[in-house]
C-alpha cells in the first residue's frame, strides 16, 4: 500500500456522506440571529431608546419563524433527514433547550425525500376523513436522550395523503391527513409518554 492508496482510502472512507440541510434553512437561522444581534445592540443603547427598541423587536419577532435564542449560546438543528436502503428515509427529531425546530425547513427536507408533510410546532393537525395505513408508512423509536427516530417508506403513503407531524416539547405526534381536506388543529399536547401515532 503506497501513500496514494492511503490517501484514496481516507477520501473514500467518507465519500458516501452528504449534507441534507437545505441552504434556505441555514440562511433563515442566520438571518434570525442577525436580527437578534441587531435588536440586542439597540437594547444596549441609551435608556431613552428602550421604547423604540422594544417596538423594533416586536415587529421583527412577528416575522421570525425561529424562536428567540436562549442564554446558553449556540442552537442546533432539531432534525436530520438521511436516505436509507430501499427508498426509505430516516428522520431524527431532537428535544431540548439547545434545539429549535424550523418547521418550514423540516417540511422542505422531507419533501426532498418524497414525503409531503405538514409540520407544526406546539400543535397537531388532523383531517376528516383520516387516511389509513400509517403503520405501513412509518416506524418510530425513541432514543435514551429523548430523540425520536422515525423511518419512512414514502412508497406506502396512500395517494392524495400527507403526513402531519406535531412537535411538542415532550413528545411528537404523527398522523396521515388527506391533502386538501379540512383540518382540525389542536394545541393540546394530550399524551406525553413519547411518540404518538394515529391511524
Amino acid at each position: 500500500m503506497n501513500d496514494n492508496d492511503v490517501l484514496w482510502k481516507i477520501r473514500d472512507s467518507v465519500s458516501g456522506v452528504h449534507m441534507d440541510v437545505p441552504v434556505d434553512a441555514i440562511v433563515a437561522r442566520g438571518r434570525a440571529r442577525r436580527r437578534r444581534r441587531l435588536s440586542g445592540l439597540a437594547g444596549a443603547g441609551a435608556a431613552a431608546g428602550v421604547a423604540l427598541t422594544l417596538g423594533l423587536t416586536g415587529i421583527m419577532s412577528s416575522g421570525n419563524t425561529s424562536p428567540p435564542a436562549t442564554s446558553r449560546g449556540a442552537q442546533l438543528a432539531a432534525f436530520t433527514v438521511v436516505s436509507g436502503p430501499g427508498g426509505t428515509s430516516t428522520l431524527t427529531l431532537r428535544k431540548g433547550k439547545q434545539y429549535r425546530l424550523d418547521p418550514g425547513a423540516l417540511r422542505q427536507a422531507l419533501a426532498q425525500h418524497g414525503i409531503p408533510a405538514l409540520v407544526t410546532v406546539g400543535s397537531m393537525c388532523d383531517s376528516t376523513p383520516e387516511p389509513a395505513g400509517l403503520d405501513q408508512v412509518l416506524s418510530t423509536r425513541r432514543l435514551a436522550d429523548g430523540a425520536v427516530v422515525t423511518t419512512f417508506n414514502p412508497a406506502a403513503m396512500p395517494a392524495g395523503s400527507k403526513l402531519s407531524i406535531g412537535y411538542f416539547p415532550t413528545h411528537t405526534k404523527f398522523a396521515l391527513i388527506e391533502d386538501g381536506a379540512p383540518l382540525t388543529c389542536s394545541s393540546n399536547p394530550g399524551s406525553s409518554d413519547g411518540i404518538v401515532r394515529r391511524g
Partner: protein
Amino acid sequence: MRYRDVGDEQSEFAEFYETSRDPCLRAVTASVGDRQLAEDLVAEAFVRAWVAWRKVRRHPAPRAWVVRTALNNGVSLWRARRREIPLAGQDAAAPTNLNDGVDAALIGALRRLPARQREVITLRVLLDLDTDTTATVLRIAPGTVTAHLSRAVAALRRDLLPASTPADAMEGRQ
C-alpha cells in the same frame, strides 16, 4: 441598493454552501466519528458563517473556517454534556444505523492520530487545501505541514496494513 447587496451576499453564500457542505461534513465526520453529530455541528457552523459572511468570505480558506468552527463547537458541547446527569428510567438507546456512507475502521484509525496530524489530514486531504493554505490556517510552517502529513500517512498505513495485506499480496503490491 442595500437590498441588492443583501441579495448578492446571499447568492454568494448559497454558492459557497452548495459546493462546500459535503466536503465540510466529510471532514467533520472524519474527526468526530458520528455523522449525526457532525451534521448538527456543520449546520451550526454554516449558520455562523452566514452571520459573519463578510469576514468569512475574506478568510484564506472559508471551508477550513467552517470545519474549525464546527469542531470547536463540538468540543464545547462535549464539555457541557459530560456534566449532565442522565435521568433514571429512560429507555435504553436503540441501535442506530445512521453512519451509512462512513468507513468505521478508517475513521477509527483517523481518530487515533495525534490532533495536529488529524487536522492536517482533514485540511489537506478531505478539504483538498494546498500545503501553503493549510500552513496559513494552522499557523505553522509549510514544512511542518508536510512532515505531519507524512507521519499521518505512515501511521494510517501501519494501522490499515493487517486488513489490506492479503489483498495486496494477491495483487502483488508492496
